[in-house]
């Protein structure tokens, strides 16, 4: 599906009003108490479009920090299970960053691999993603180094590029086309294609200068160097706090717990987990195969830049830079990727997955 339209700022307001009126939940970056996060809006004027990158990534809306999987109730020897809904009311997310939109498409791989995660795909199906091309946020951005870009349309249904008076709209998916079709009064004939192109080029240049690596080269090196001195000091300053995983749009590990509510009922829930803590790998015996922060940080790098791409094709990183901004100890993924990219390539045969 392709095609172009124009969405003026005023018509954008109308679009949000129309969607809200028809019962669609509309999300956008919202500023509150000095923080910008994706949140529910009723009026486009509540949104902080073009403001800072939201602190938490978009994944919370598709894979919440905690969610029930089912409830149980025991009566005598009978146990009744109560399922949770796996279909969701339609939602439109407006002003998504390209790095966040791409993360959804990247995560579809693991979420739909051996088991199709109903909660993930239920929300994916319900959501229409209106991405706004990003001018590049700061020096921690590196989307273009992982095969994306500040104007990438991966994972988006519509890609909006800021131009004079509104947005140049690129229709990316059938879902995006359906939204345009359902709101004919909001979208007009395409306008500002040239200035949109100029915006995109400038953004690509700006972000591109932050980090230039070849992710394939990094992957090939990692595949052959699980045991390498490079990793020996990698976790020294790392606290293992997992803030990086919390803000990461692609970190998706979860734990499953049963939470009793009284003696005879309870909820099974899943919630975010992170490989950066010792608890993540500790065995019942007390032995921990990842005994300290060096192998734990290695795992973060290996999973994102070798294991996941080998299995699902995509790098498990969209270059949003949140981990680097959030790290209280100054761990810097751009620096680490740059160092990995410069490692001499001597790949043992058969190790390149």
């Amino acid at each position: 599906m392709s095609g172009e339209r124009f969405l003026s700022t005023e018509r954008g307001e109308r679009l949000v009003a129309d969607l809200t009126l028809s019962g669609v939940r509309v999300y956008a970056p919202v500023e509150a108490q000095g923080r910008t996060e994706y949140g529910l809006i009723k009026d486009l004027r509540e949104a902080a479009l073009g403001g800072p990158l939201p602190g938490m990534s978009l994944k919370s809306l598709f894979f919440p920090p905690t969610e029930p999987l089912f409830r149980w109730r025991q009566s005598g020897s009978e146990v009744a299970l109560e399922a949770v809904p796996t279909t969701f009311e339609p939602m439109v997310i407006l002003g998504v960053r390209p790095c966040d939109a791409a993360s959804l498409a990247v995560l579809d791989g693991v979420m739909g691999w051996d088991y199709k995660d109903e909660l993930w795909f239920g929300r994916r199906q319900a959501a229409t993603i209106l991405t706004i091309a990003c001018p590049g946020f700061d020096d921690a951005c590196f989307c273009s180094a992982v095969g994306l870009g500040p104007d990438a349309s991966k994972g988006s249904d519509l890609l909006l590029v800021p131009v004079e008076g509104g947005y140049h709209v690129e229709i990316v998916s059938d879902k995006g086309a359906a939204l345009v079709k359902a709101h004919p009064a909001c979208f007009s004939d395409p306008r500002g294609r040239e200035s949109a192109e100029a915006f995109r080029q400038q953004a690509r240049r700006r972000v591109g200068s932050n980090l230039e690596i070849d992710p394939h080269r990094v992957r090939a090196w990692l595949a052959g160097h699980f045991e390498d001195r490079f990793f020996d000091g990698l976790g020294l300053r790392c606290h293992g706090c997992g803030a990086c995983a919390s803000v990461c749009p692609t970190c998706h590990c979860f734990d499953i717990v049963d939470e009793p509510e009284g003696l005879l009922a309870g909820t099974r829930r899943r919630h975010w987990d992170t490989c950066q803590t010792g608890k993540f790998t500790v065995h019942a015996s007390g032995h921990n195969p990842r005994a300290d922060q060096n192998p734990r940080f290695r795992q973060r790098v290996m999973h994102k830049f070798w294991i996941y791409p080998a299995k699902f094709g995509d790098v498990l990183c969209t270059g949003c830079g949140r981990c680097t901004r959030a790290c209280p100890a100054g761990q810097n993924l751009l620096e680490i990727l740059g160092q990995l990219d410069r490692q001499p390539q001597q790949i043992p045969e058969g190790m390149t997955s």
Partner: protein
Amino acid sequence: MRELRELAKKLLEEGTVSVVIGWEEGPRGVRPAFVTSPEDAEQLVFNSRSVHNLATYLNPRRPQVRRLGKPAVVVKACDAASVAALIRETQLKREDVVLIGVRCGGVVGRPDGPAELTPETVARRCMDCEKREPALCDHLVGEAQPAPPRGEGLGARLGALEAMPLSERWAFWAGELARCVRCHACREVCPLCFCERCVADKTVPQWIESSPHLRGNLAWQMTRALHQAGRCVGCGECERACPAGIPLALINRKLQQAVAERYNFKVSDDPGVPAPVGAFRLDDPQEFIR
């Protein structure tokens, strides 16, 4: 800076220590550095962006740091109080660490932010800090420093919160804690969270629900607070690490006040001062026992 670098170099050269834990200028601001060879001592810096409490690397839960051998750690006055607490609580022997004290005129809130100290940029905990240099140290370096800029410090924020009616205060904390994602970053960066197995990680029984819903988050944050009472030195690293931006330093400051009022205990960098939870006194207030 010269003084600091030369001292670090000397300590490494003569083999007094195997590693100097200090700060360096990283690609995005100042960050912790682990210097193991004398020639690398040149990378050490101390300035207004040396925000991190490096005492946290003395926490026994860090085998990768312990393996480096005997450390020297650069400490501000506030960081030295953390070292004192680790010694007080028998997690560290005084002779196992060399402390390089630095004279400090306050630090900014963010190590990757502007370096200039103004009422807007200065870390809240520094606004009412009276200590320019640590007493607990083996070496003291740097020029004498002026007091940090004053501004609306933690005390003022806490006062505003305490002036709220109970329902409003509850709404405030419920709103803040609802954002907690239970990554436990607050615990992991804390120099004094050294339990080998945290009560929050125990599952048989599960004392604290691990899910980040308000019930679990409250249980976790209340437990953390009570376990820190009379121990927390107020370095604020938990709040800085929190990816959800929860103002944890307010809770810590409140606890400090409560402990000061009830047990006459003030945060100290003297390891000989007994901890209120670690010392028994016949005259401890106990009117709540009936």
